């Protein structure tokens, strides 16, 4: 991973970031916010080809990518992200979209190899205006972790079969599941829910048992988030 310099203002690691979006006003606003937080924008792209060139040219820590981009205004951004993941696994990918589509997320997850160290983020576009966008999303993905939009909780109840399974979980276990899906680590979970790390671990175990998730996956952060996300993105 590219070594970043410590930002003096925040004490956090400054990231080198490539931005890609076809709306120049948005691009400018986003860049301003990120630069205000001490990050460096190495390149801006308004379409997918420029994005790939920029990533290959500047090898950033993170690429923030709008899923819909010219020329087709369909999934140009997603396709570029999948390619970048294959070509430069160390580059974190933060996908921004106006809606949450789990199949898109799954494509990105499946594109990553085992050696991938770059984080993965998938956020609704409107999220960028939140006060904690940079600290909770950009910094996390830049640090190789996952940051999935809270919208993911809707996927919990997507199929009747899943609703049946989830009925076996307590409210707090459900909350743990959702936060796992959003990419929170055990300590972040504990802080967020104001419970002990030990309780968090219990909940995680129960959730994995009840949902028939592979138990070996729960021990490692990366595997755990992937397991939960793939579970949510699956069609059963």
């Amino acid at each position, binding site marked *: 991973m590219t070594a970043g310099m410590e930002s003096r203002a925040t004490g956090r690691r400054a990231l080198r970031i490539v931005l890609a979006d076809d*709306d120049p006003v*948005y691009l400018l606003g986003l860049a301003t916010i990120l630069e205000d937080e001490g990050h460096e924008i190495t390149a801006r792209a308004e379409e997918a080809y420029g994005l790939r060139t920029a990533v290959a040219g500047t090898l950033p820590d993170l690429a923030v990518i709008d899923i819909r981009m010219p020329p087709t205004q369909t999934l140009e951004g997603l396709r570029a992200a999948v390619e970048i993941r294959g070509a430069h696994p160390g580059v974190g990918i933060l996908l921004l979209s106006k809606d949450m589509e789990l199949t898109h997320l799954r494509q990105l997850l499946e594109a990553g190899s085992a050696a991938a160290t770059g984080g993965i983020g998938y956020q609704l576009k409107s999220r*960028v205006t*939140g006060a904690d*966008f940079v600290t909770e999303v950009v910094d996390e993905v830049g640090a190789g972790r996952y940051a999935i939009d809270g919208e993911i909780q809707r996927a919990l109840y997507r199929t009747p079969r899943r609703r049946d399974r989830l009925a076996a979980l307590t409210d707090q276990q459900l909350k743990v599941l959702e936060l796992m899906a959003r990419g929170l680590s055990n300590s972040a979970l504990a802080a967020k829910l104001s419970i002990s790390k030990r309780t968090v671990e219990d909940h995680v175990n129960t959730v994995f048992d009840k949902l028939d998730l592979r138990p070996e996956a729960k021990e490692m952060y990366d595997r755990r988030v992937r397991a939960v996300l793939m579970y949510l993105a699956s069609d059963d």
Partner: protein
Amino acid sequence: MGRTPRWMSWPAPATPLVGPGMPVANGPRMPVPSPQLNAFALAAAGTAFGIWVLVVTAPDRYADSTSTLFSGAVGGLYLGAGLLARLRRPGNVVGALMLLVGIGWFAEDLQISTDPRVHTVGLFLRSASTGFLIPLLLVFPYGRLRSREDHGPVAALADRILLATGCTVAFVLQPVAVFFHDSVTDNLLLVHYVPWLRQLTDAIQLVVSAAVVAVLLWRWAGASRPYRRELGPLLAVGLVGGLASGLDAALGADREWSHTPLLTATHLSVLCLPLAFLAGVWRIRLGRTAVAELLRRLPLDSRRELRDELARTLDDASLQLGFPAPDGDGYVDVDGRALTAGPGQWTSVLERDGRRVGVLVHDPALREDRYVLEAVVSAAALELDNQALVAELRASRRRVIEAGDEQRREVERNLHDGAQQRFINLGLQLRIARRRLDRAASGAELAGLLDGALAMLEQGHAELRVAARGIHPVVLSEAGLAQALRSLTADLPLPVDLHVDKLPQLPEPVELTAYYVVKEAISNVLKHADARTVRVELHHSDGVLNLSVTDDGVGGADPASGGTGLLGLRHRVSAYDGRLTVRSRPGEGTVVAVTLPTRERATTKEGGLV
């Protein structure tokens, strides 16, 4: 007569059929003037004559024989069946010939008389029934000899030669021979006895009979199913009768002239011949039941099914169903290939309300039962018309749904890429301002950020308004089309020249359609045309709303795709019986023109277009 026939038949050329210019050869035959009356008169005369003959000859028949009864039965059957046939098919000569065979049959019996005068007359007429039977067999069942056009020169010539020879032998040769041979009763007109003459004339008759049988077999071999069905009984009887009479003639003069097995066989087959014809009539009645069956099975799902049902009903596997070709030239079959009639096939036109909805290419035999064919043709026309209507209805329903979907997509795009993005940007701007405030940025910088935010808010609002109008323009139902167009065109970045004549109160769907056309056309102008001015014109006259959107831009829009929005509108316009045209030559700007009927199509009282 009087009424024009709704259907026509003619032999189809072997080349692909052509449309309206198709030659109508061999149209419906003109019926002989009051053939029914003639038939009754002939049958009555024949009956009277028959009774007289039976009475005259009764004393001379063997006392214990059934000869009188038999003669009367055969002759009577011919007269009865002939009358029936004549009444059922006035245009067909078969019935008349059967009547004549019946009369000829009685005439032959005159030679039974022992009165030399009657007997001599009888001798002259000894082949009268055969003389009529040969033409009858040759023209059955259509009442015509085979034609050169349909069956080729050989068949046509063979029929004519046989007819001429048969009649000549029966009505010339045999009577002439009377002068040269004697008989059991005195031949009053015997001039000179020539011993071999009678054998000669009988031999000639044998050859002619054999030839007739051969021709019938020949026809049978080459016949289609419907024809075979009609010919079958006749052929069987003709075969037996022809062989028997031929053998009878061949065996010659040495035998008694009555009660030989051969003569009985001949007579039996002659007796069966009218019955065979009646059997034909019976079969046609079966055909009518089949028509009723066909009607009961309607409506069908596809043209192919209709073809199959028709083929089954008419018992004609070669039957083809043709439809006006999509390019308007000729006809195509159920698979969409150019329709080609087989050799000898005939064509009937399927019409509905004066429109040609298709053609039926079929075996000529079917034409003989006019009623069945007419019923089938009507049913097929009805069904085809029905299928076409249903297909059109489905297509238009689909188009309307597609147009609706397209519009929803459009609204979604507008909301997504427009208003939503604007508000995200606004949020970003405010977020930046907030951050700057934390860092005690200058008042001027903050003011700049907030001004930017306000501008974005305004833009987002405007775009929301546009999107909402795309869902439904409220102003349209509140203030009418003219006002709605005014407000639509008021705040555009391009000057729009709006000319709206005084419009009457229009049905809402018409107003909506007009509104959307103008909106879509203008939005296309803004997106693609690079125009300086747009002119929108609306005027209403004679129940038609005329609308045009003209720009002075680059032109060259593809009218077919021409923006998917326009395509959806084209369907919408056509759903209301209107027409949308796009004229867009490169460099000459674009004109989108629409005509929309504003009145209810029919004169239905209730229920407007709404």
